[in-house]
């Protein structure tokens, strides 16, 4: 058998491709996430879509929808491994840090799909005021998503090992994610209102540094979660 020099990238990409193939064939997390966000969006649009809302309110609505859809989707990455019993084979073949990294990338990709589907639909159904800085909006949404998935992946692992009760993840994640949510809602509001990159510089810096801190802490803590 050809044995190459072991590269961490190979293992992480193997886990990501495997999860993508699995998701493509079963579409569990994807449907749950998209249906949830669509239902919420439709409800919101139906009831208050006709009013001209302040940009801050729009941004808050976007992130409420994204947050709760993300909670239902991110839960799945570790829970489905636990439920089907494949976590044992995974633990024997890869270290905890590698598993975590693979799941982190996969979760980020899932959330990117969410934003790609949801944001245009939001524009169509809710009519936020024109004059928003689109590029900045997309940029801040993506940065917010990165921080969201970075913080939630470890907690998803904790919830999966704790018996994967469905409602546990939002309870655990909310206090940890609050700094991110506050910053990103404020930033999205400014971007929707047509602000420039200058005003959002501190927000970006904060989100990126939060991402680094949270991913480092997760990498340090994940072996204790995956143990036993």
């Amino acid at each position: 058998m050809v044995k190459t020099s072991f590269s961490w990238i190979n293992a992480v990409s193997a886990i990501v491709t495997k999860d993508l193939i699995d998701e493509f064939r079963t579409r569990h997390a994807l449907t749950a996430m998209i249906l949830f966000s669509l239902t919420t969006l439709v409800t919101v649009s139906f009831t208050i879509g006709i009013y001209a809302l302040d940009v801050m309110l729009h941004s808050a609505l976007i992130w409420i929808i994204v947050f709760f859809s993300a909670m239902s989707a991110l839960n799945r990455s570790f829970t489905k491994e636990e439920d089907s019993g494949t976590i044992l084979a995974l633990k024997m073949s890869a270290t905890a840090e590698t598993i975590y990294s693979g799941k982190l990338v996969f979760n980020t990709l899932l959330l990117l799909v969410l934003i790609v589907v949801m944001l245009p639909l939001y524009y169509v159904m809710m009519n936020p005021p024109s004059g928003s800085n689109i590029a900045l909006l997309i940029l801040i949404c993506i940065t917010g998503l990165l921080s969201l998935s970075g913080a939630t992946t470890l907690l998803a692992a904790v919830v999966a090992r704790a018996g994967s009760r469905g409602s546990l993840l939002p309870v655990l994640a909310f206090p940890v994610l609050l700094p991110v949510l506050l910053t990103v809602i404020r930033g999205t509001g400014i971007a929707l209102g047509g602000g420039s990159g200058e005003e959002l510089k501190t927000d970006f810096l904060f989100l990126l540094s939060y991402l680094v801190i949270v991913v480092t802490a997760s990498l340090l803590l994940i072996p204790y979660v995956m143990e036993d």
Partner: protein
Amino acid sequence: MQMSISFQYGKKVTILKIQYSIILSALRAGINTRLEQVRQSLTLFKGSIKMYYNVKGPFMKITINKLAKIYNSKKVFSSISWQPEPGKCNLVTGPNGSGKSTLLRLICGLEKPSAGSIKITFNNDELSVSEIRKVTGLVTPDLALYRHLTARENMLFFAKLGGSFPTEKELCEILVKVGLAGSIDYPLAVFSTGMKQRLKLAYAIFHEPALLLLDEPNTNLDDEGKIVVNSIISEYKSKSMVIIATNDQEEVRQYGENILFLDKCSKCNSN
């Protein structure tokens, strides 16, 4: 009066400073040790290939010393001392609940012992948990492979995790060995339990492990499957350390060359 106020205030601030610096240094020390461990495990991956070729079963020594395992005040076993021997078929047996599967999990590092130790050495170098896992092949009823992936995708995935890229020929060879040649491209959801068991065997021996742990290898298998298991065990007896855990008296008779009999713990329940 003024002096006593500033003295109290100064003392409070000093105490706060001391507490803060203690906590900070403890955190730093903790983070440093963890970073060190992470660094070690990452460099281990580079060295693992060298290790792969060198770690061979016959030179592996396992010493189990006064091992005990307790779950939530329920004692699974209290004091086991054993030495599995290379070149022979080592067998662990006992009634239900005596801890056979637990012992296997403890050996390959999936769980930590409550007391006692397991030392696995190769050429007098003690192997760490991640090194042990890399050279172990495990088959248990708890193990499951990915239902929505085909047999080929499963095998390729686990091989890639270990850093190897097998050719088509090698893949087919191993599946022929376990008798699954025709089902290489079917998803595991359509496999019967016997076929799944055979795939588990293929998964365990694909990377030619130096330590082969088989927990009830004959479950769900028909006669042909049992012949497959027999041939695997005979083949690996000489080049790896083989430890089997089983209930079946037939298997004990057939394979048992170095047998450990676990008694059901009599003081199992405690308040």
